[in-house]
């Protein structure tokens, strides 16, 4: 700032040498000067109340409420959108050599040296190995059905149970909110479950497979009882022999001997499916993991299946299918997570 030389410093600093012009104006205005001593503050009018600090917590609280509302609205919208696949709309199938629409009734075979990825409506994704033959049978909302004649399929679905059914020559593979790998070769289908539960069913019987376990299904034979992948190879083989040659006592002995705590589920299912072997299987299961509360082997042997399921439900297994949504990781795309 360049001060006007005609203006004295007294204007800036009243302690400086007085300037006549400014002093004259000050005197002229002197009657208006405020004197706090002559006009004291009436402190009796100051009501002493607890002065609450400004409610600054309100601002973040309101922001959080708005954010929560937006999140809920977005979640509800996403939820609705996820289940709202138009009936009959073609899926998209992409691979290095394919970029096709998978329409209802039209089959497609992934080239041998290729891999493809297809959307399952909006509920999930499937990866198809080379040579896999697939046909879309029906699609809408959260009801999707495909037919797979050969090859390998890795499915990840986050949806209520039964949203995806894969028809194979051996029978149907039904998702119960899960991730699984399915291999189809001729009339045999093998399923390995990575999360949640999968049901396999044919015209003979049906089986539930929990995460971490596998099973096989052959046309016109009962699907195999689920066995955990980390079970002893001898146990797995023995269980198969028990199922195919029910009276093979050697196989039963091996099954009982090699069973671990985690295999109690397999023992219970085997007992349910093979009443003649049930006493031995349940006794061994009881040694490994005692049944809960009022469940007794006697009750089960008398035909009380609810007791058997109470025991089964007490085991450390994946969330039941009614709580499929707990497997929220299955909503993530393949590229984000690997198992």
């Amino acid at each position, binding site marked *: 700032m360049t001060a006007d030389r*005609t203006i004295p410093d007294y*204007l800036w600093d009243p*302690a400086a040498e007085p300037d006549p012009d400014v002093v004259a104006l000050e005197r*002229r*205005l002197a009657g208006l000067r*405020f004197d706090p001593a002559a006009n*004291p503050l009436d402190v009796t009018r100051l009501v002493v109340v607890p002065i609450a600090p400004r409610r600054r917590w309100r601002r973040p609280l309101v922001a959080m409420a708005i954010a929560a509302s937006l999140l809920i609205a977005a979640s509800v919208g996403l939820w609705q959108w996820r289940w709202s696949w138009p009936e009959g709309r073609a899926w998209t199938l992409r691979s290095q050599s394919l970029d096709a629409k998978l329409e209802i009734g039209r089959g497609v075979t992934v080239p041998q040296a290729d891999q493809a990825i297809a959307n399952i409506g909006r509920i999930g994704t499937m990866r198809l190995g080379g040579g896999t033959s697939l046909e879309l049978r029906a699609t809408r909302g959260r009801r999707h059905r495909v037919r797979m004649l050969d090859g390998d399929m890795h499915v990840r679905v986050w949806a209520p149970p039964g949203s995806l059914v894969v028809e194979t020559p051996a029978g149907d593979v039904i998702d119960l909110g899960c991730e699984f790998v399915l291999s189809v070769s001729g009339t045999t289908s093998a399923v390995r479950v990575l999360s949640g539960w999968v049901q396999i069913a044919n015209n003979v019987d049906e089986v539930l497979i929990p995460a971490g376990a596998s099973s096989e299904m052959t046309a016109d034979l009962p699907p195999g009882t689920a066995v955990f992948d980390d079970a002893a190879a001898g146990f797995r083989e023995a269980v198969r022999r028990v199922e195919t040659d029910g009276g093979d006592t050697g196989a039963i002995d091996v099954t009982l001997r090699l069973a671990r705590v985690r295999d109690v589920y397999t023992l219970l299912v085997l007992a349910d499916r093979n009443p003649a072997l049930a006493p031995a299987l349940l006794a061994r299961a009881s040694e490994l993991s005692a049944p809960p509360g009022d469940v007794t082997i006697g009750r089960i042997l008398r035909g009380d299946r609810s007791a058997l399921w109470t025991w089964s439900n007490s085991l450390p297994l994946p969330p039941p299918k009614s709580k499929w949504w707990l497997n929220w990781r299955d909503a993530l795309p393949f590229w984000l997570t690997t198992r």
Partner: protein
Amino acid sequence: MNPPADAGHARLVIAARGGDRDAFGELYQRFSRAVHGVLAARVPPQDADDLVQEVFLHAWPRLAELREPAAFGGWICTMARRRAMDHHRRARPSNELTDTLASADRPDVSAEAASAIAAIQDLPEAYRETLALRLVDGLSGPEIAESTGLTHDSVRVNLHRGFKLLRERLGATP
């Protein structure tokens, strides 16, 4: 002299927030002239004194809203500006300022003072508050800067240019 250059008033603000009326009284002693200067630049002189009280009484329960105690000067002057605007909105249509000065409210206000303050209030907005603080209430340049939130350079410019303009309007010998 008010308002203070020292930072002691921050301590007074904190004490006043806790309900210490004496501390608030001390703040009044220090800042009432700055508040008066702000008001004098905007409202009729006979109303300014009463409004000073009102501004401080209005500020008292709101001290907790002041985030930075050291900024009390700027905060109370902003409150005074708002109060002056409210005063104008509520005031009934009145005659010219000089006509009202002879009212019984301030019989002590001379016609000379009335014409001088009217001339200040007639200046461009940038100058009127600075000059009122300096010429009416005797604040120094640094004190005006602290009360108004302006920089020293801006206050100096406003003082100098405003005074020059005022002198021209009032005649060569004010």
